[in-house]
């Protein structure tokens, strides 16, 4: 949602991909710098600054509030990873926390009027491919290369392997993009209602979209981020059964 939509209403429904800020040619390949890339870098910088702010000047005994917050976050993630994956996979904590943070910030950035980075299929696909590589690595580690290749004797297994990243990325993308489109449609409908009742200012767009935004932006964004990391953890942990 753009800021001007709140004052003028949405006159026509236009749903498209992220805008292209600039593009250049590199080795004959056209590379587009899109809105998503810029906002993603913004999120990366913001998260880095947040983490630096929370962790600088740490004491052995916490005296500052921000150290308590940092310790709480780290302990929560560690506990979640340990509960879901078992003690052996404790080292996955940072990856899971980074994925969760970038996912939830990427979805919630729509609250300040920017385009959600997760409403772009490239973002979720790249995360899903990252998780896919880790899942396959965990499988190769558990079974050995021979055992891993042996599991593909049944060709249906190849389909099930490939469908993992596809379903993970489509799920996240579909939820966030669907919420974005439904919000646009609601603004369009309410603007139409205001125009039909001879109001130049779309007064009906006050209030109701906020309630729906609670579900489509806050709840959905949080749930999808959580489900994404849970599925990643479950798939990695299920590669090897615990002795």
């Amino acid at each position, binding site marked *: 949602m753009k800021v001007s939509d709140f004052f003028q209403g949405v006159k026509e429904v236009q749903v498209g991909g992220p805008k292209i800020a600039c593009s250049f040619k590199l080795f004959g390949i056209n590379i587009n710098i899109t809105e998503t890339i810029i906002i993603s870098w913004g999120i990366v910088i913001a998260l880095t600054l947040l983490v630096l702010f929370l962790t600088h000047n740490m004491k052995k005994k916490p005296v500052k509030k921000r150290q308590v917050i940092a310790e709480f976050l780290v302990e929560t993630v560690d506990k979640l990873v340990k509960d879901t994956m078992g003690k052996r996979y404790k080292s996955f904590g940072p990856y899971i926390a980074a994925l969760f943070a970038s996912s939830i910030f990427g979805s919630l950035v729509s609250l300040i009027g920017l385009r959600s980075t997760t409403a772009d299929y490239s973002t979720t696909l790249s995360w899903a491919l990252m998780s896919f590589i880790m899942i396959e690595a965990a499988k190769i580690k558990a079974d050995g290369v021979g055992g891993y290749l042996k599991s593909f004797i049944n060709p249906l297994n190849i389909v099930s392997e490939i469908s993992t990243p596809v379903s993970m990325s489509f799920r996240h993308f*579909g939820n966030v993009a669907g919420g974005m489109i439904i919000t646009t449609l609601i603004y369009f409908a309410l603007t139409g209602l205001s125009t039909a009742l001879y109001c130049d200012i779309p007064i009906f767009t006050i209030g109701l979209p906020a309630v729906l935004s609670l579900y489509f932006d806050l709840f959905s964004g949080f749930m999808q981020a959580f489900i994404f990391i849970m*599925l990643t953890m479950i798939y990695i942990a299920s590669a090897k059964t615990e002795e």
Partner: protein
Amino acid sequence: MEKALVLAASAIGAGLAMIAGIGPGIGEGFAVGKACEAIGRQPESSGAVTRTMFIGCAVAESTGIYAFVVALILMFINPFLGKL
């Protein structure tokens, strides 16, 4: 004329694709009902039940999401217009 025909067919196709929304709706309803039963029987395990239920719901939802993505592509990207 041909363009209008393709656009109309795409819109109908998108609508038909979203019939797939019935399945996840029924399935998730069952899952949530069973979770409510479980919480009613064992209120102390509500946290684990709720977490498991949400993950199950998310997985059950994927077929609906696939249909939704197909509908989105048909409606807003119009891939068949290029094949005229």
